[in-house]
């Protein structure tokens, strides 16, 4: 907005432009996390809401100090005692890491092909990548159930061709979760990759070719290093949400597919243990805080 003039009316307007979204995010995004931390330190109770308030600011400072001393880390201790939790964290990180790598390998050639396509084709191709990205996540995961389940389309096809004689048990399994994550998050990788590859200065590659550099070597020495910002952005956009993914492991994964998003969901909706699910969320956030901050830095740099 045209508010860079420093007279008082302008600066008031300018102040409002910043303050309204700022306050909104503090109240509805930041404050909730503080409440999560607070509740993760409370004791579980059979009531509604199902926790004992840990801090009650209305009671005055003296009482508050008393309450501070009573804060319990029991929920966090509980997380370390039950193997379910740390196994879920580790398995989520593993699944997210492998998926990110697979998506990079699959997404790079697609983005590269798009960036090298003729100019009049590029907008259409770009829209074709964006379109599934606008379509519901749930629907796209659901579409795979019909394909992967034991009596599903893939097994029918393979059986009728005669490649297999017994239906494959792809779903539910961890393999199906990988397929689901790769499928759902692929556009998040292609879009930033395409954005950097499209801007690539082609004269560099021509110069390399003129000097006798073979195309594959030119790719590793020029194209790939220059596309790194897109690679980094894409990897963060895929990795961070994939760690906390719930829908995909819930619908495509088996009971042996542990992911922390699924564990948190079960803890909250089935066990109704709010303090423990808050503690699960706090630890998950602590694991993700470094990748999130790196992502923000990359975003900030890209927008400047």
């Amino acid at each position, binding site marked *: 907005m045209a508010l860079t003039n420093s007279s008082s009316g302008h600066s008031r*307007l300018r102040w409002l432009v910043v303050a309204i979204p700022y306050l909104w995010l503090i109240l509805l995004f930041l404050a909730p996390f503080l409440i999560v931390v607070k509740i993760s330190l409370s004791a579980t109770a059979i009531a509604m809401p199902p926790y004992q308030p840990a801090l009650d600011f209305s009671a005055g400072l003296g009482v508050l100090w008393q309450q501070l001393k009573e804060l319990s880390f029991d929920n966090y201790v509980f997380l370390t005692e039950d193997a379910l939790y740390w196994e879920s964290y580790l398995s989520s990180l593993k699944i997210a890491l492998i998926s990110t790598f697979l998506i990079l390998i699959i997404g790079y050639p697609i983005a590269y092909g798009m960036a090298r*396509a003729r100019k009049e084709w590029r907008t259409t191709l770009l829209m074709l990548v964006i379109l599934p990205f606008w379509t519901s996540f*749930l629907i796209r995961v659901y579409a795979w159930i019909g394909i992967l389940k034991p009596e599903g389309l893939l097994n029918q096809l393979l059986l009728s061709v005669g490649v297999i004689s017994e239906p494959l048990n792809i779903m539910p399994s961890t393999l199906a979760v990988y397929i689901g994550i790769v499928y759902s998050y692929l556009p998040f990788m292609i879009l930033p990759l395409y954005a950097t590859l499209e801007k690539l200065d082609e004269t560099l590659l021509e110069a390399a070719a003129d000097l006798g550099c073979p195309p594959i070597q030119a790719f590793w020495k020029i194209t790939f290093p220059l596309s790194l910002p897109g690679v980094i952005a894409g990897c963060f956009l895929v990795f961070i949400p994939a760690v*906390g993914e*719930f829908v995909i492991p819930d*619908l495509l994964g088996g009971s042996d597919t542990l992911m922390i998003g699924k564990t948190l969901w079960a803890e909250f909706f089935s066990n109704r243990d709010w303090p423990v699910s808050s503690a699960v969320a706090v630890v998950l956030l602590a694991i993700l805080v470094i990748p999130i901050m790196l992502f923000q830095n990359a975003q900030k740099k890209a927008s400047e």
Partner: protein
Amino acid sequence: MRRGASWFNVTSITLGFAFLYLPIVLLVIYSFNASKLVTVWGGFSTKWYVSLLTNQGLLDAAWVTIRVALLSATLATVLGTLAAIALVRFGRFPGGTLFSGMVYAPLVMPEVITGLAMLLLFVAIGFARGFWTLTLAHITFSMCFVAVVVQSRLVTFDRSLEEAALDLGCPPFRTFFTITLPLILPAVVAGWMLAFTLSLDDLVISSFTTGPGATTLPMKIYSQVRLGVTPEINAICTILIAIVATGVIIASIVTKRREVERQRAERLAIQGV
């Protein structure tokens, strides 16, 4: 490097798009399956679409979903546009780093965390859960997507036009509505559409923040999907896909036409016609 079709590029694009589209195409085809068994083709039929119309629970859920999406997308667009302006134009203000952090974090934040956090806020302040908590939650996460979309347009924005208006004595408020907003409008519209579809699709955050009487379509679909694949769900999904696809295609055609017109107008202006 040669532009255009090398066999490698064509193959990777073809396979990539086949992978992206095949599952959706199969889902749409099987929504017209006469057989109740989703994976056995029993002839063409539209009966599942007809049976949707008599499913009152589903229609109620669709109505809640559309109202939440319209309201939250509109408010998220206003807040997100303000946030984008704050980020691009007044990057350095006290707490600016915290602000940009709060705008970018929801883009990647796992939904289970955001959903749980918002629910606990609503419980802590004693806000009855239902339509309004759902809407507030949707505004909050989708405004950040709007902010990023509008921000990318503002970064490439020619500020001399605004400066000219201000120099000629146009008040900032009016300058915004007569110069800035029309120029960033395509991005604002795209942001609104993104916020609308994000709200339409959301399952996880909605499940946490909703209350009695406010069941959304994704929640309904999810509870049915857990029981198994049915042609009826394929039919709802096909309708949702059709709505989104039509919206996106129309928007991109309109944007392209506006762009062509703008370029023509600029050429004419340069030629002094």
